[in-house]
């Protein structure tokens, strides 16, 4: 089987991201499960001891459960957007919106390496591309950065300016990222401590 095709890299990236998302969802579910279990324990104890349950404690637990459902809902919304990225062969997308989605779904992986991701997009820029491959390109570039040991505990910033995305500090781009970029006819340019993605 020939696995040198960049589409294989994109499939791997999708697997990496969905695994990370499922991990985050499991954390939300675990908190909801333990908080509701704690509530059950408190009810049982109050019945045994004939004590009144603290309303403050109940409020604290229900607020925590509610907050976890909000967190889980945001994660599922991102998962849904991600799932629909292969729907169209070509789509006019808002670059900032898709960059934001890419950084959101990558956040846990970056957190594990203590890398802070920031996005600045002073203006909206529309671009016709294949969203799944575009997202895969951004994730592949993020992987290039996080896999380099010297980049642990660093900040990585994205700036959208007209038809260019500037990433600082400069990243040593892998051949995988180059190949994915070539599928979209996008060029990557490394200069002045910046990686520039040219959306032409």
């Amino acid at each position, binding site marked *: 089987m020939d696995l040198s095709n960049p589409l294989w890299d994109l499939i791997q990236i999708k697997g990496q991201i969905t*695994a990370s998302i*499922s*991990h*985050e969802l*499991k*954390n939300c*579910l*675990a*908190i*909801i*499960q*333990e*908080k509701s*279990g*704690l509530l059950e*324990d408190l009810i049982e*104890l109050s019945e045994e001891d004939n004590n009144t349950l603290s309303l403050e404690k109940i409020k604290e637990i229900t607020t*925590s459960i509610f907050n*976890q459902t909000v967190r889980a809902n945001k994660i599922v919304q991102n998962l849904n957007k991600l799932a629909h990225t292969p729907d169209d062969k070509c789509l006019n997308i808002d670059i900032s919106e898709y960059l934001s989605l890419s950084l959101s779904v990558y956040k846990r992986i970056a*957190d*594990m*390496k*203590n890398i802070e991701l920031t996005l600045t997009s002073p203006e909206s820029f529309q671009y016709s591309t294949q969203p799944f491959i575009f997202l895969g390109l951004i994730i592949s570039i993020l992987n290039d950065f996080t896999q380099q040991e010297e980049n*642990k*505990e660093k900040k990585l910033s994205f700036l959208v300016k007209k038809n260019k995305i500037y990433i600082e500090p400069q990243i040593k781009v892998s051949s995988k990222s180059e190949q994915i970029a070539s599928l979209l006819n996008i060029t990557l340019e490394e200069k002045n401590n910046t990686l520039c993605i040219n959306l032409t």
Partner: protein
Amino acid sequence: MRVLLVDDEQELVEALVERLKFRGIEADFATTKETALKLIQEKKYDVAVLDMKMPKISGLEIMEELKKIQPKLKIGFLTGHGSKEDLKECSLKGGCFYLVKPVDFEDFFNKLKELEEK
């Protein structure tokens, strides 16, 4: 029995600690390696239950550091991943149990009781 839970999800470990205390198990939690090391230098624990993947550090790395301070400490792992590779690595490195989140609390409690009886 005294248990130390180490996981970056604070709300999760807070709830687990409270539930264990209701069942007569002394428990503390840490959300970072630094706090875990501080606690283990202050108190003697029978078991440490570690998240496999935390920011900056893995559960296996934390295990090594904790065992340098308390070599007889028994270790269990909690994980959101549940891959066969993780399970194999935990067993090879001396983990006593490995549970996938969200865990069944009774299973978790029983694993701790089994360790207490060993």
